[in-house]
Each structure stands twice: as structure tokens, then as C-alpha cells.
């Protein structure tokens, strides 16, 4: 099954949940936030949210910035 994580296509085996995807990606679960098809998925719902073909997932964290330092890299697309 193919999904898009932060704009990148990824092949996943089976039909994992969002929580399983985050574990697979070895991301620190603290202080990140996740959007599935442009809607925020609350942390408590990660394990009950099953992924589907062509889902678009955005996973964000925080970086240094003040007033627009990183103007060329929009955070979400």
C-alpha cells in the first residue's frame, strides 16, 4: 500500500495504523503533530486510525525560527 508522508511516497506492508507508521519511522512521539489528509489526528487517536491507499500524512515538529526565517520551506503542503 502506498501512502505519502511529508510529500514522499512510501510503500507500507499491510494496513498499519498511524501509531504503527510513526513507530516504523522511528520518530519521537513527543512534541510532534500529525495530519491525515489535511485534518489533525489527535495523539489519542493514532492507534485507532488505520491508513488507506494514497493517504497523505504530514508529520511536523518544531524548529528554531522567529519571524519568517525559512520562507522557502512552507511547513505544510
Amino acid at each position, binding site marked *: 500500500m502506498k501512502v505519502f*508522508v*511529508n*510529500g*514522499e511516497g512510501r510503500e507500507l506492508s499491510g494496513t498499519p495504523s498511524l501509531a504503527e507508521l510513526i513507530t516504523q*519511522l*522511528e*520518530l*519521537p512521539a*513527543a*512534541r*510532534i*503533530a*500529525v*495530519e491525515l489528509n*489535511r485534518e*489533525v489526528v*489527535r*495523539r489519542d487517536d493514532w492507534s485507532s486510525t488505520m491508513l488507506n491507499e494514497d493517504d497523505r500524512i*504530514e*508529520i*511536523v*515538529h*518544531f*524548529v*528554531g*525560527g*522567529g*519571524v*519568517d*526565517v*525559512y*520562507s*522557502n*520551506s*512552507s*511547513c*505544510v503542503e
Partner: protein
Amino acid sequence: MSTATARVSNEKLIIAGREFSSRLIIGTGKYRSYDQMRSAHEASGAEMVTVAVRRVPLDRSSESFLDYLSPSLQILPNTAGCYTAEDAVRTARLAREALQTDLVKLEVIGDQTTLFPDNEQTLEAARVLVKEGFVVLPYFSDDLIMAKKLLDAGCAAIMPLAAPIGSGLGVQNPANLRIMREQLPDATIIVDAGVGTASDAAIAMELGADGVLMNTAIAEAEDPGKMATAMKLAIEAGRLAYLAGRMPKRLYASASSPLQGVIK
């Protein structure tokens, strides 16, 4: 302690019921190292710092940038990098989910060269976010009418620019800030962007701003720690001068010594 000093030391910056002793809000970008950032933060006395939201890199395990911030700091996530109201709203929602804070520095950029705000998109995003319970602090052009619209939309504070982001030019239109202060006496006005050095921050405060938000002026100084201290003092000095009420400007001299009794 003089009356004015007493008044200043008791006076807090209040944003949506939250009290801050420091009127300086600073950024977390462009520092040469995390250690340098941390010492500058400490020297500045700021109690609130702003951070940007970005995609997590998937190719490496990234440590959390937030771990480098003192836990006592209030984190103000921003929507830097967004060019539409929709992206800014999505970014704010993600930030709230990750940080469990309803504060957001709303920034919708209209143009890459100037980084001037897209005021129309900013207002649209502000309306949506206020409805969703966010405490919205919008960056916008220093325009009174826009300021009124943002306040009407329910923004907790308004953040007019002093000059283009990262330009260090200082307050380019002092008349606009003064008019905004006079016409909106109850609004919380935080000058955001364009300050270059301590005197710029003092001028913003003397014009009646309630606070100043800056990043580059401190981060790009040769010695960010020293500049952070300078900014802290400038903001206190400017606030005190504003409260003291400056003398009127005159074109001609006005002698300070008595004119009578001069020897002839």
C-alpha cells in the same frame, strides 16, 4: 524608588489574561549554536519565545529542538512560512496539538522578497482561529484600519511590523505606530520585526508599544548575549520614557537656566 519606577516594576504585559514581566519576546532562529541561543535567551529576560513548525525529517532521527529551550519559557508557535490562510490555520492546529497551547503568532506572508504580510489572508485566518479558541497574535502591516479589523476579529494582541523581517532598519513609520497607540488605547500592541539594535527597540516602546518581538537583531549580533542584555534594557528604558511622558519637541532653544540675574 521613584513613582515612575515603581509603576514600571509592577506593570505587566498581559496577553489574554496571561501576565509577563518582560515586554520582550524573542525568536529561536539563526543562532550559531543552541548554547548561544540559550545564553541569549537568559540574558534577554524574555519569558516567551517563538518557534516555527516544520516537517519532521524522515531520513534521520532528530532530537527535539524544544529540549534546548528553558522549560520556564512560554512557547509561542508561529505560522512562519505560510502563504495562505488555509496553510496558516493548518499549521496553528498542528502546533496546538503538539504543544497543548492555544497561543499562536499568526504570520501569513504575501511576498518572498519583502516578507511583507498578506493582510487579507491574515485576517481570514485570524477569524477562523479565534472561532476555534486560539489566542491569536497576528503579524501585519503597520496600518490602523487593519489593526482595528484584527481586533474586531478577536485577536488578543496585534503585532505591526517596524520594518521588513530581518532587515534591522528599525521603526520606519513612527507616525503609524503613534496613531495606532492613540487610536487604540486598550489594544495590546507588540512591534514585530525590523528592529536592528537597542535604540530601535527603545523607540518602539517610547511610541507606546506594549512589547517588542525580535529575532535577527539578537541572533545576528556579533555577541548575541550582549545584544540580548542591551535589548532588555532598551525595552525597559523605552517603556519608562513612554510612561514618563516626553517633553514636547521645539524648533528653537529654550534655556534651562534662569534668564534673570546674569552679570552684566
